C-alpha cells in the first residue's frame, strides 16, 4: 500500500545525527570562553562611567539560586566527549576509537530509534490539514490516521492547530487522556484534572513553585534521583530532603527510611511539603512493588505530604506497573484523602518523542482555591505546544485491534520493546561480569546504574586529579573507549559508594562493541589500580 521502507529519509536523519554530534562540538562548548568577548567575565574593558559598577547580568549580580543549581546530564563529561569527537573528525588516528558512543542521555531517536509511524502520520496531517481534502492523501497515509486526524481537528476550535488553546490543553484531548488513564487504572480520571505541558519538566517546576515558600520548605527526593528535582528545588529556593533507595534490595524504597529523613529534617526546622517518587526509577530503573506503593501512599496521607509521582519512564518488560493513582484509589482513598500529582511525558517509553516536548500532570486531591492558582500559573504561559498535546493524546489512545494500523503499530512497538529488553540484558550481564561491579536489573526505564567498588589507589588518583572517583572512572573510560556514561555523583548516591548511569539506547549492533571495549578497559583499569 502506502508504506515504504524508510530509505533515503532515514539516511538523511542518520547522517544528521552524526553531523549533529560533530557540529555541536564545533560551535563551542558552554564551558569554553566565547571568542566574541575577552577572557575575563566582563563584556568590555573600555566602558567608562558604569564600569565601576557591576553589570546587572553578570556572575556576581545574578540570582544566586541560578548559580547554585546543577544539572549533570548535560555536564562536563559530555563536553569532553564532544571535544574528542571533534578531534577524531579532523584526525581519525587521534584516539584509540573511531566514534563516540553516547550512553549518557535518554534521547532514543538521536541514537536511531524510529518514531511510531501512526503517530507521525496523524501529527503530519494535523500540521497540514489542507491536504486532508485531497484524494492523493489517501495514497500516502493510512486510512485510520486520516480518520484520527479528522477526529482531533474536530476537537480543536476552528481546526486551528496554530492557535493558543485552553491553558490546560485542548479539552477533547484531555478527554482522550483521561479515558486512557481510566482504561489503564480501572478508576475514573477527570479531564479537568489534566494540565498538558511542554514535557514533564514545566509541570514539575509549577508544583515546586506552589509548594516552596522559603528554604524552610523541604521536598523529599530519592537518592539517586533524576537531577531535574534537585535543580528545580534549588531554583525555587527550597531544601532537598534526601531519602536513600536501598541498593541491596534492588533499589527498594523503605518507608522507615522516609520516616527517618522526615523526622530528621523536621527537627532541623524544615517543613516537609511533598514526597517525590520516580517510578520506574531514574537512574535506578526499578519498578516499585504494589505493597511498597501502598505504604508510600499511607505515609503521605498520615504526614500531610503531597505525593509527586514521576511516572514518565514507564516501559516495563516484565514487572507490572501500577500508577500511584490506581494504588491510592484501590486503597479507597479519594480526592479528600490524598493530594497526588502524577507526571507523564511522551519522551520515554517505546515512543521516545523527546523533541516534541509533550507531557501532562494529573492533579488530584486539592481544594478548588489551590486548583485556581495552578490554572492561573499555567495561563501566564498561555498553553503548551499543540503538536505535543496531540501526541500525548495519541500515546494514551494508540491503535486498537481491528484498526488498519494496528498490526504495523504493534510490530513497531514490540520491536522496540524487545530490542530494549535484549540490550538491557546484554549490558546488565556485561556489567555484572566486571570485577568489582554489581548491577541491578533494569526492570523498567531505559537506564542501568551499576555500582563500582573502586580500589583505594584509584580513589587517590581521582583526588589528585580533583575529580569525584566515579567521574574519574568515566573520564578514563571515555578517553580509552569513546563511551560516555554519566558519573553517579550527578544523581546522588550513598556517600562512599560509586556508580555510573548508562542508557540502554545505543543501537543494537553497537552494543557488542560497547561491551568489548568496556570490558577491556575495565580490566586494564583494575590492573592499574588494584591494591
Amino acid at each position, binding site marked *: 500500500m502506502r508504506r515504504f521502507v524508510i530509505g533515503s529519509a532515514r539516511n*538523511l536523519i542518520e547522517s544528521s545525527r552524526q553531523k549533529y554530534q560533530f557540529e555541536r562540538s564545533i560551535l563551542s562548548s558552554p564551558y569554553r570562553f566565547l571568542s566574541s568577548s575577552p577572557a575575563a567575565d566582563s563584556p568590555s574593558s573600555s566602558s567608562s562611567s558604569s564600569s565601576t559598577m557591576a553589570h546587572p547580568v553578570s556572575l556576581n549580580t545574578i540570582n544566586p539560586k541560578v548559580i547554585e543549581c546543577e544539572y549533570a546530564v548535560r555536564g562536563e563529561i559530555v563536553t569532553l566527549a564532544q571535544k574528542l569527537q571533534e578531534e577524531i573528525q579532523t584526525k581519525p588516528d587521534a584516539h584509540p576509537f573511531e566514534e563516540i558512543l553516547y550512553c549518557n542521555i535518554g534521547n532514543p*531517536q538521536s541514537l536511531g530509534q524510529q518514531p511510531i509511524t501512526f503517530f507521525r502520520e496523524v501529527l503530519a496531517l494535523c500540521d497540514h490539514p489542507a491536504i486532508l481534502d485531497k484524494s492523493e492523501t489517501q495514497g500516502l497515509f493510512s486510512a485510520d490516521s486520516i480518520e484520527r486526524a479528522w477526529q482531533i481537528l474536530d476537537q480543536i476550535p476552528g481546526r486551528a492547530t496554530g492557535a493558543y488553546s485552553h491553558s490546560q490543553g485542548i479539552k477533547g484531548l484531555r478527554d482522550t487522556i483521561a479515558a486512557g488513564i481510566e482504561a489503564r487504572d480501572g478508576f475514573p480520571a477527570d479531564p479537568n484534572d489534566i494540565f498538558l505541558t511542554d*514535557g514533564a519538566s514545566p509541570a514539575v517546576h509549577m508544583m515546586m513553585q506552589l509548594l516552596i515558600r522559603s528554604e524552610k520548605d523541604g521536598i523529599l527526593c530519592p537518592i539517586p534521583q533524576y537531577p531535574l528535582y534537585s535543580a528545580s528545588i534549588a*531554583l525555587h529556593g527550597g531544601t532537598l530532603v534526601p531519602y536513600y533507595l536501598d541498593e541491596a534490595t534492588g533499589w527498594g524504597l523503605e518507608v522507615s527510611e522516609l520516616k527517618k529523613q522526615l523526622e530528621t529534617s523536621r527537627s532541623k526546622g524544615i517543613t516537609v511539603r511533598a514526597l517525590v517518587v520516580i517510578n520506574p526509577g531514574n537512574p535506578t530503573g526499578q519498578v516499585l512493588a504494589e505493597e511498597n506503593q501502598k505504604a508510600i501512599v499511607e505515609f503521605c496521607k498520615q504526614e500531610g505530604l503531597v505525593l509527586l509521582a514521576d511516572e514518565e519512564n514507564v516501559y516495563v518488560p516484565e514487572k507490572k506497573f501500577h500508577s500511584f493513582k490506581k494504588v491510592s484509589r484501590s486503597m479507597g482513598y479519594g480526592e479528600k484523602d490524598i493530594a497526588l500529582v502524577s507526571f507523564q511525558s511522551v519522551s520515554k517509553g517505546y515512543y521516545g518523542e523527546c523533541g516534541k516536548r509533550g507531557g501532562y500532570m494529573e492533579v488530584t486531591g486539592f481544594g478548588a482555591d489551590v486548583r485556581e492558582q495552578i490554572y492561573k500559573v499555567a495561563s*501566564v504561559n498561555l*498553553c503548551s505546544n499543540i503538536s505535543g498535546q496531540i501526541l500525548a493524546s495519541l500515546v494514551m489512545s494508540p491503535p486498537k485491534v481491528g484498526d488498519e494500523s494496528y498490526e504495523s503499530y504493534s510490530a513497531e512497538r514490540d520491536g522496540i520493546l524487545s530490542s530494549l529488553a535484549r540490550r538491557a540484558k546484554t549490558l546488565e550481564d556485561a556489567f555484572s561480569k566486571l570485577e568489582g561491579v554489581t548491577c541491578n536489573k533494569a526492570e523498567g526505564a531505559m537506564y542501568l546504574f551499576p555500582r563500582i567498588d573502586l580500589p583505594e589507589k584509584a580513589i587517590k588518583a581521582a583526588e589528585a586529579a580533583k575529580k569525584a572517583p566515579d567521574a574519574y572512572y568515566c573520564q578514563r573510560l571515555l578517553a580509552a573507549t569513546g563511551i560516555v556514561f554519566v558519573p553517579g555523583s550527578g544523581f546522588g548516591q550513598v556517600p562512599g559508594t560509586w556508580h555510573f548511569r548508562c542508557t540502554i539506547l545505543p543501537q543494537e549492533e553497537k552494543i557488542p562493541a560497547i561491551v568489548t571495549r568496556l570490558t577491556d578497559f575495565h580490566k586494564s583499569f583494575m590492573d592499574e589500580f588494584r591494591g
Partner: protein
Amino acid sequence: MGLKALDYETMNENVKKVQYAVRGELYLRASELQKEGKKIIFTNVGNPQALGQKPLTFPRQVVALCQAPFLLDDPNVGLIFPADAIARAKHYLSLTSGGLGAYSDSRGIPGVRKEVAEFIERRDGYPSDPELIFLTDGASKGVMQILNCIIRGQGDGVLVPVPQYPLYSATISLFGGSLVPYYLEETANWGLDVNNLRESVAQARFKGITVRAMVIINPGNPTGQCLSEANLREILNFCYQENLVLLGDEVYQQNIYQDERPFISSRKVLMDMGPPISKDVQLVSFHTVSKGYWGECGQRGGYFEMTNIPPKTVDEIYKIASISLSPNVPAQIFMGLMVNPLKPGDVSYDQFVRESKGILESLRRRARIMTDGFNSCKNVVCNFTEGAMYSFPQLRLPPKAIEAAKQAGKVPDVFYCLKLLEATGISTVPGSGFGQKEGVFHLRTTILPAEEDMPEIMSSFKKFNDEFMAQYEDNWNRSRM
C-alpha cells in the same frame, strides 16, 4: 484523616500575587457563557488563527514532511507537496540530531540559530553570534528565564511600561521582585518620556529598590506605539547611565501599520551608537513565531538574543536551559522558516508573498476600522494602532457608572467589559489588567476578527456603548443630538 497537604494558606505567597488578566475574570466568564450556548467573539488574546487567520501554507508543508519523513521516500509525495517544501524539509531534518523526536542542543538546533543570526544581520546590518541566541518554547519562557536571572529578591526592581503586557507583572510577582512602573503618555500617542523614566527610577531608589532592568515592548502591547529611533537612543543612553539591562520585547516587529516609524531593533540602534555604549549596555531581545503575519501561537516558538552578557553568565543561562533539555523541535523549524524565508524564483514564493501580504494589508485596514469605530463614540478616545495586534481605547465613564461598578464590587472597566460581554458576546480585557493612570479606564481588544465581521462588531459595540451611557449619564441622549 491526616494533615492537610497543600492548601491556599500554605501556598507560596508569590503565586497568589500573580495576576494575568488576559486569561482572567473576563475570559473565564466568556468561556462560561460560551458553554451556555452564547456566541462569543474572543478578542482577549493575540491569537490570530483562533479568529480565522489561515496558517501560511509553506511552513505547514515543510513541518508536516519533517513529522513524517517516510513521506519523502514515497514517489507520490510530489503530488501534494511542492519541490521547495520537500527540499526545505530535507534541509531542516539534516540539521536535527535525529529528526523531530530527538532533544536538540538545549539552546536550540545550531543550524537554526545560525539562520536566526543571519536574519538579524540582514535586518540590522551588524553581525550576530548564534552562540548568543537561545531558542525557547515561546518568547514568554525566554522572558521568564531572563527575569529569573535578574531578580534576586524584593529589593530588585524592573522598570515596566504602564500599560504593559501582564506577562511582566506576573513574572515579577512570581519571582518576588518589584515592578517599577513608568507611564507612557496617552496624549502623545503613548510616547515614552525619558523624564518619566528618571522620575520612576528616583522614586524606586528612594524606597530602597535597586533598579536592575528596563522592559520596552516595541511595538507596544497593548498600546501599539512604535518607538522612534530618537526614543530608542534616549532609552539606551538612559540604560547606560543607570546601569540597567534592557529587555527588548520585539515580538510584534512584523506588525507595523504606519510608515512614519518603521520598526528599528534596539540592537541596531545600540550598535549604531558605537563604543563605549555599544560595548557596554546589556541587552536581551525577544522574538517569536506567534505574532507577525505568521500567527503560529500554538507552536510555542521563540528566541532571545543576548548582547554584552559576559561568557560565564551565558553559561549559567545555558545551564538553566539545559534543565528543560531542549525547546520543542517543530517550533524551531517554524523559527528557521520565519527568519529564512522563500526567495523569488522558489516555486512557492508567489503564494507565500500573496498570503503574507494579504494578512498584513488586512491587519492594517482592520487597525484603521477599529480605531475609527471607537473614536466615533463620543465617550471613547482611541489612539491609532501603529503596530502589534491590539486596540486600547480609553473609556470615559460617568460617575454614576463608576458608582454602579463600586456597588457591584468591580473595578469600573471590569464592570463595563462584563456588561459588554453579556450584551454583545465581545470578550475583551479590561484596561486594569495592563495598568493605567488612576481614574482613567480602557479596554483592550484585538484587531484580529475577520475583516468582514469588523463592521458588525464595531456597530454592536457602539450600540452597547450608547445604551450603557444612556443608562448612566444624565442627558446622554440629548447631548448627542
